[in-house]
């Protein structure tokens, strides 16, 4: 599932530029981690999602709980897992459950669950494609498929998307709708039968995007240091409202130190 987030971010990792003392991937992890609050239950795949969760838990949300779709609840994460079935997601947990139990937690009306997801394509309403490019019956490119992403997008209280910014990824029309966002916007998600959830934000290598409360259309919320609104618009395949954009707070020295020294010291995901 959000193991895809890792690929996207992998390309985005790049090197730090002379004027920015951090890489785009570090900014992504820290920006996404800031959405996490104490008490949240975080449904994470691997890749940047785990970095974001690791930062949040060590900095401002020690009471947040990470759980993995395979059923490992609150693992120690002493070492970074490289897949959601890595034995490292089973270590130091409060319980090792199965897939069905994991999704019963994510759907639980008692819990505030936030899922981190990646995808190959996203549209203006935050619907995701992680299945294929081209016609589904004769795809030009086949991806992994939903995994647990469609389930998490359907059932969690909210979800956050990691994407590399580009016109081929931010598209007018998805080639395949794998995971439901705000569907056609407005009330359409509710009308389809969902009773909660929907995308909260999209965190890219350039910026943070959010969704209008009424139309549920994506808008530019925060641009990273050194990124212009025009650059974001030029890399987005649909019209984007930039009127509400503010400057993102750069990573603090503390955030960077914790991310680099404690969360991923081997730079297995940071690259």
């Amino acid at each position, binding site marked *: 599932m959000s193991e895809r987030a890792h690929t996207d971010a992998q390309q985005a990792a790049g090197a730090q530029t002379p004027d920015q003392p951090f890489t785009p991937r570090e900014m992504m992890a820290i920006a996404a981690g800031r959405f996490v609050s104490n008490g949240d239950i975080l449904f994470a795949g691997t890749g940047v999602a785990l970095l974001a969760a690791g930062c949040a838990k060590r900095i401002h949300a020690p009471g947040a709980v990470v759980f993995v779709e395979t059923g490992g609840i609150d693992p120690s994460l002493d070492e970074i897992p490289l897949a*959601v079935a890595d034995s490292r997601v089973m270590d130091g947990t409060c319980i090792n459950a199965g897939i069905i139990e994991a999704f019963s937690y994510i759907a639980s009306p008692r819990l505030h669950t936030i899922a981190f997801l990646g995808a190959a394509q996203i549209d203006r309403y935050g619907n995701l494609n992680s299945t294929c490019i081209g016609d589904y019956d004769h795809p030009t490119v086949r991806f992994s498929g939903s995994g647990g992403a469609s389930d998490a997008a359907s059932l969690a209280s909210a979800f956050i998307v990691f994407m590399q910014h580009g016109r081929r990824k931010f598209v007018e029309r998805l080639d395949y709708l794998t995971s439901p966002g705000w569907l056609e916007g407005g009330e359409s998600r*509710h009308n*389809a039968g*969902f009773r909660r959830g929907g995308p909260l934000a999209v965190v890219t290598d350039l910026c943070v995007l959010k969704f209008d409360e009424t139309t549920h259309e994506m808008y530019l919320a925060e641009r990273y240091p050194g990124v212009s609104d025009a650059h974001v618009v030029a890399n987005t395949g649909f019209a984007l409202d930039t009127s509400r954009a503010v400057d993102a707070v750069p990573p603090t020295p503390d955030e960077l130190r914790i991310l680099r020294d404690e969360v991923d010291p081997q730079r297995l995901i940071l690259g």
Partner: protein
Amino acid sequence: MTAASDIDGKLTTLGDAVERFAHDGAVVALGGFTINRNPMAFVYEMARRRVRGLHLVAHSNGQGLDTLVGAGCVSRIEVAYGGNGRFAPTCVRFRRAVERGEVAVEDYSNYHMALRFLAGALNVPFIPTKSGLHTDLVARQGFSAAYRAAHGLPDKKLIVMPDPFDDGGRADGALDEGGRADEASDRRGPGGDVVLLPALTPDLTVLHAQTVGDDGTVRIKGLTFADLEQAKASKAVVVTCEEIVPAATLRADPDQNALPPFLVDAVVCVPHGAHPTACRFFYDYDPGFLNSYARAARDDQAWATFLDEWVYSVADHDEYLAKIGAEQLARIKADPVRGYAIGLDRR
């Protein structure tokens, strides 16, 4: 390891288990998930014996699925995820085979597939969920109507319907004069639509477990994924394992056990039988092997050479392990407390 007594006559060899249970065209479910506890020794034996036409029903069987597809054993797949974590965001032979139209594929989600196994285990024809509404997982069939008819598959992938218990938003749940809820039941009511998923009852489930009793009792350590639902839904179950112990040993602590003996048709003791995937408390995944697998898989010629070297030209799993080498197996040996190889170089 304790000498196995085989009190129920279930102990056998990989070759015998494949011959008896993995028939051409069988509907097969593999245990494990991406890079963990895939029944790889059994997978290799199926490839070696040139099993053909398999119909895989899979949530996220990364390495096992990709090896079987790459060896030409598979005709169609119902699948949630064909990836292998950082080692292959999309499994390479799976990707090639789908893009070339060499396998038919129909997509579901992980929860969908796990629920379908549960429905099979419960012996009910379908199971409802709210997951996937309004997506192409629901809207698009992977197997065409003609393909379904030709292969005896059910007409429909799944069905979406309004919650039959939904009273249309009326708090008292009153029925109309005809005894029915309002026909024009507002889909914005409390229930809304649900997805009905068809049950799965595979011909065969193959699992790799840490420990099996000599009566067939199965103990799995760590996450069980959908292994238990798959086993309970299947017409036959083969379990490969790291060790076989006397049944009494497992009965001394039954809270740790996962499956009763009467569900298990055959047991094969294959140490390192999940390699190159991990088996908690026994060994980690093998990063070097997984990386070279992914590299070879990207090129048809290199892949053919890889298959020949690691599958066809080795007689059995012992010879395969000898090729991997004691040194590498020592590197991936799991810490007995943490369950994985601490500090393993995983680049």
